């Protein structure tokens, strides 16, 4: 950019013409937009534009899609154990485009993980973490963990069988931590078991905490990237500048744009033709359910199976965290300037081994499920249950005040007669349907525990001063009707 003479875009300023130009100028004087845009679009890429550089902006693009679809899903979703599943079923089965948007969001999380792995692999193979890019690499590692955390917390939110049991297994891992394990598990779950508090916690983490951290880290990541500049070709040497560079615009921007279009098309087609399913509502009492995590957690899932009992600490905590520390500390360990992958056999070999092991572990998990007859049968049964649930029409949730939700009282014919008296005497106009109370009068549910039947009768026939002031009238009915009314009021629970 400094050599404006060679830049064919060095622009001779021209006098302003027309409203759009004047608006742009007005805006630019106040924001410095023009300079920012030029810095971004003219950023030099040593060695020129390449398809292998598109993953970073692809991730930003998926993130944008996740934010938008996520916000829209929140229009109908409620995070509580008794509502989450119904509201997701409502989104999936009733609301227009609901299944599509939910699928876009769910597949988007998988796409995020895939593109993230591609981005990381490209950065690694190109040695783009070298030459004063330690913080850039570290912020990327933190973002990787946060994206996996987003996927993990989001998985529970539909509160179907799959979500419930997979998260139950996932949160159990926390208890393997030495000393604070059990405490940590209870912290994550909001109690010793999975329940509605777990769902609230996961929702808050998924919607407020982790996104906040992601935004901050992405800002840092992009800033550090701008500061360090594009690493470019593996052959470029920072000590010997003069390597031919090409600006980001237009060829790299076009590639990034093309990749974004590919992502939209792939996600859109998948979401339209294979919308994600919703299983039956979580039933913690189902002891036969075989939980399986989402594909990107399968390698870890399989790995955990290899470390029973006392070895668990080594396998679950020590080995993975050592690898993670080694990986994050790479730019501090590998200080050579050499970036060509074929000249870095140890680093590239180690990376390939890790990727291959993860891949084989995932594959092994799938294979062992297929080989075990009982598990294969149960998994097939679960898939069938999900399909059956998806085919059933949407069933609205019964409101608490509903008739069907209460009315144990009617089992007793005497109390049933009392209910008639209750309604004929207009008790319900103040005390509400089934004695649930209203703005006009207190609820009667549970009153049987406070008064004996004869006390109740006395109060009904001769209300106290306080009751009369509150609008209560004396009940004038026959002895038999009074007896059944008292039986009914007593039975309200």
């Amino acid at each position, binding site marked *: 950019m400094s050599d404006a003479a060679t830049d064919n875009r060095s622009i001779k300023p021209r006098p302003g013409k027309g409203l759009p130009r004047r608006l742009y100028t007005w805006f630019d004087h106040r924001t410095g937009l023009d300079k920012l845009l030029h810095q971004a679009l003219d950023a030099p890429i040593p060695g020129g534009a390449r398809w292998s550089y598109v993953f970073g902006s692809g991730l930003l693009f998926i993130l944008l899609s996740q934010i938008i679809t996520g916000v829209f899903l929140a229009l109908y979703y409620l995070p509580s154990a008794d509502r989450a599943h119904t509201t997701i079923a409502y989104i999936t089965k009733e609301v227009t485009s609901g299944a599509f948007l939910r699928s876009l969001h769910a597949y988007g999380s998988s796409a995020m993980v895939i593109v993230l792995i591609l981005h990381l692999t490209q950065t690694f193979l190109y040695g783009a973490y070298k030459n004063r890019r330690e913080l850039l690499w570290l912020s990327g590692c933190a973002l990787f963990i946060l994206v996996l955390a987003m996927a993990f917390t989001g998985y529970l939110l539909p509160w179907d069988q799959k979500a419930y049991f997979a998260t139950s297994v996932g949160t159990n891992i926390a208890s393997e931590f030495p000393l604070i394990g059990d405490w940590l598990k209870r912290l994550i779950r909001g109690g010793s078991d999975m329940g509605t508090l777990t769902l609230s916690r996961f929702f808050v983490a998924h919607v407020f905490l982790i996104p906040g951290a992601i935004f901050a880290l992405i800002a840092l990541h992009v800033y550090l990237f701008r500061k360090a500049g594009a690493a470019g070709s593996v052959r470029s040497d920072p000590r010997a500048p003069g390597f031919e560079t090409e600006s980001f615009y237009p060829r790299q921007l076009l590639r990034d*744009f093309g990749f974004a279009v590919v992502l939209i098309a792939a996600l859109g087609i998948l979401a339209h033709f294979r919308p994600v399913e919703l299983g039956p509502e979580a039933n913690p009492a189902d002891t036969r359910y075989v939980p399986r995590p989402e594909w990107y957690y399968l390698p870890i899932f399989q790995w955990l199976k290899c470390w029973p009992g006392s070895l668990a600490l080594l396998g679950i905590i020590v080995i993975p965290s050592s690898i993670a520390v080694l990986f994050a500390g790479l730019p501090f360990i590998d200080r050579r300037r050499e970036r060509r992958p074929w000249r870095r056999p140890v680093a590239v070999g180690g990376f390939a081994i890790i990727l291959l092991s993860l891949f084989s572990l995932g594959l092994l998990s799938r294979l062992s499920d297929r080989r075990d007859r009982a598990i294969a049968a149960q998994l097939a049964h679960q898939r069938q249950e999900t399909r059956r649930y998806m085919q059933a029409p949407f069933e609205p949730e019964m409101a608490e005040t509903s008739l069907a939700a209460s009315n144990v009282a009617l089992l007793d014919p005497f109390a049933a007669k009392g209910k008639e008296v209750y309604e004929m005497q207009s008790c319900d106009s103040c005390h509400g349907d089934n004695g649930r109370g209203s703005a006009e009068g207190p609820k009667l549910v549970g009153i049987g525990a406070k008064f004996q039947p004869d006390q109740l009768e006395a109060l009904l026939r001769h209300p106290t001063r306080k009751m009369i002031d509150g609008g209560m009238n004396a009940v004038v009915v026959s002895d038999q009707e009074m007896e059944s009314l008292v039986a009914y009021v007593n039975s309200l629970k």
Partner: protein
Amino acid sequence: MEAEGKTSNPGTTQPSSGPFSPETNSSGRRSFLGWLLGICTLSVGALLSVPLVRFGLYPLRVKTTETSWSDLGDLGKFAPFPSPVRRLITVEHLDGWRKAVFQRTVYVTKDAKGQTIVLSAVCPHLGCSVPWNEAQGQFICPCHAGVFARDGKRISGPPPRGMDTLEATIKDGRLMVRYQYFRQLVPTKEVVA
């Protein structure tokens, strides 16, 4: 960088030039590309916003709150009765993803012209449920002694209007009614949402 050059030149009111601006780029191909990219982005964005808009506007296009029609039974059955017939109906109220089911009392009776009408038993005064008093041939509210005629017309007492008629229709010979609530203490019948 030309933007910097400009700031050192505050005297001239030269506008800055955007990278996508058509006039300033010496290469027409580049600016054309810029416009093309901008238009593509806009059209892709517009395409993607279609499902979002449909999703967000769903409650505006589809009825999400609705009270179902309740079946009162064969219309012919009510003909022989001279007095109003008390019936308990089960009302289903749909509200988005939730549904409430409750029972309400209605009276099937006839208006002055002999047409079958359905009255809500809720007193328009303070909302007590009004029973039919067979001995006196009137509806008498037990709370504040509002009195109504056989067809629901107000006779005496504090109620500001007569008993409320409910929307009723005959479908395949069966009497159907749609339950609604009405504002109390006002002289005209006003549906409460």
